[in-house]
């Protein structure tokens, strides 16, 4: 089980969402993907994508402008 880190600090819409999706596509089932970013809307939208993709949202931490989201594929 691997842990994949995606850093999208300074990136704005739609890049954090795209990079998260790319990482999720290459991950194996059970892998953990950690996304670190600073774009406020993406903090809300990445969890929406996780729900739409029927994956597991492990945690959302930090402020709107400096956050970490953990997802299990």
């Amino acid at each position: 089980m691997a842990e994949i880190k995606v850093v999208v600090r300074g990136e704005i819409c739609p890049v954090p969402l795209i990079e998260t999706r790319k990482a999720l596509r290459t991950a194996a089932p059970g892998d953990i993907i950690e996304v670190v970013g600073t774009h406020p809307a993406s903090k809300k939208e990445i969890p929406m994508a996780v729900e739409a993709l029927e994956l597991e949202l492990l945690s959302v931490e930090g402020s709107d402008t400096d956050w970490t989201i953990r997802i299990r594929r």
Partner: protein
Amino acid sequence: MAERATIVVQSGDMDKLYSSLIIANGALAMGMEVCMFFTFWGLERLKTGGLEKGPLSKMHMLGLGKWMVKKRMKKANVASLERLMSDFRELGGRIIACDMTMEIMGIKREDLREDWIDEYAGVGTYIQQARNSELTLFV
């Protein structure tokens, strides 16, 4: 089966192509299948080297407006159209080029970025795609 989005890209304007590609990538990122149907002025953007060549739909001002908007976009770190297109393809987005437009405008396949295009087709293909889509847009 995944939900589908179908976007007709009729406009060749830079800002509208941004809207289309951002929506398309967002839909892919959220688990939808996406098909973009390029027609008329939109097809011009699929020509080799043509992606970034579109004018602004408003306040283009002979290129001055576009230059200003691009400068501001760069400052805000907005992704380039090249990058959005490459992400769209990488995430499995499909592109159909309208073959009637190609005939009217005298565009040949070798004039286009063939590596981006999955199919050259007409309205029937679009309708079959659109009637099975949860989201359809005409930009």
